[in-house]
């Protein structure tokens, strides 16, 4: 093996443990924690059918979606320039108050110094609308659930008791306490504000000038997101795969 070549590769860290390892570990976890976890027996969605296509892939396999539509998002991460037009569009469309704690989508920054030169990376984040959503499992009153039509994780605000367990459970920091709603609020892929009105994409995706956010139905082979996810030789990753939440927001470099 060419060591120099290898050294150029980005360090993937423990966050990119092969999916097989992860799943075996999770299965063990399911067995140990038994009834509390629910797993395939009690969970609200048939997680078995929503798994990745092959052992090493984070991408759902074809023909194995439990929802009518299966919405997801691809982030072409290195295109993100943190202009934050997406954040403004989201706030406006979904009436997210302009407070530090309150956001449905955000952009993270990472500054590193490589050979004395400052390097910056931006990473857009939002709810990952996981196939095995920890937030949905822990909610005592089903105030948050997977929409059976779209697979979008949505809130039923009036049922939210404000125990904040979903916030503790979410690996993606996607949830916040909304004073206005007096409940937990989160991204819903603009389900009520745009998709319901027939729009084809989310406010953030529509606002992005750098073509970072590609939103669409993963199930539909004609969509751009489908094509991006099935482009050969493209490295695709998800955030915190070790949590086993099977997220539907995928990252790649353009």
């Amino acid at each position: 093996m060419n060591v120099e070549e290898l050294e150029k590769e980005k360090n993937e860290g423990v966050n990119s443990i092969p999916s097989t390892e992860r799943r075996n570990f999770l299965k063990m976890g399911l067995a140990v924690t038994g009834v509390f976890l629910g797993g395939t027996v009690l969970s609200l969605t048939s997680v078995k059918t929503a798994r990745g296509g092959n052992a090493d892939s984070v991408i759902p396999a074809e023909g194995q979606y439990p929802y009518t539509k299966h919405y997801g998002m691809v982030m072409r991460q290195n295109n993100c320039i943190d202009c934050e037009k997406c954040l403004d569009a989201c706030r406006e469309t979904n009436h997210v108050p302009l407070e530090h704690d309150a956001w449905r989508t955000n952009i993270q920054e990472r500054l590193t110094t490589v050979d004395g030169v400052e390097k910056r990376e931006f990473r857009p984040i939002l709810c990952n609308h996981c196939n095995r959503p920890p937030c949905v499992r822990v909610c005592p009153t089903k105030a948050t659930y997977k929409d059976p039509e779209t697979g979008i994780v949505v809130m039923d605000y009036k049922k939210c008791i404000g125990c904040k367990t979903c916030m503790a459970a979410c690996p993606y920091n996607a949830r916040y306490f909304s004073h206005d709603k007096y409940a937990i609020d989160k991204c819903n892929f603009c389900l009520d504000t745009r998709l319901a009105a027939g729009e084809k994409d989310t406010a953030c995706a529509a606002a992005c000038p750098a073509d970072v956010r590609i939103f669409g139905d993963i199930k539909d082979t004609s969509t751009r997101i489908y094509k991006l996810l099935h482009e050969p030789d493209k490295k695709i990753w998800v955030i915190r795969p070790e949590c086993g939440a099977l997220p539907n927001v995928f990252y790649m470099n353009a």
Partner: protein
Amino acid sequence: MKKEFLPVAVAILAGSFLLVSHASATSATEEYDEDAFGPQDPIIWDEPAKASFDHKIHTDDYGLECDSCHEDVFAMEQGIAPESGNFTMAAMAEGQFCGACHDGDTAFASNTNCIACHAVPEDPIVWTKPVKAVVFYHKAHTEDYGLDCDSCHDEAFAMKAGAAENAPDFTMKALYKGKYCGACHDGETAFASNTLCNTCHIGKKGYDRMMGVEPHAEKKGTHGGH
């Protein structure tokens, strides 16, 4: 490119240094006569591009009389030239304003020796339109990469601050067609403008940091409880 540029730069810098030190030497020994030599402090123009003019160098050092320039070339009254809307390098090339003498014969041509009158901006240019925020460092391009002012001005970029920013075509698409930064950032002369986005795009976070905006405190400030 760097090697070619360096001696030129050194010569220019040394030259201007000599001029300045010479001027200060005279003013230190003799009482400066503003009536004879014009205002002591240099004129600084902000429009259409930042530039300076020193009366003393022209009168005291080079022995020009007031009527060499006033009022044929420049009005006595302050601010007339920039307000004319024609106070440009193009006009000078046609012999107007400074170009009356700075034609390459009487004095150095107006399209040379830029930094005799213009300074390379110390601070980075930060564009906030059409997206927030893009940074450009003059210093890196002139000193590190050895470019001259006319490498970019006025073909790729007008000297006037904000000109590109307010142009409707100041977009990545235009860059890909070789406009603006794309004149060099084409993948050959310099890295292609559709790569390494975050070299120039510092984002809103980078902008806030540069402008000294405090990042959000971890806890919002509306606390009733304590």
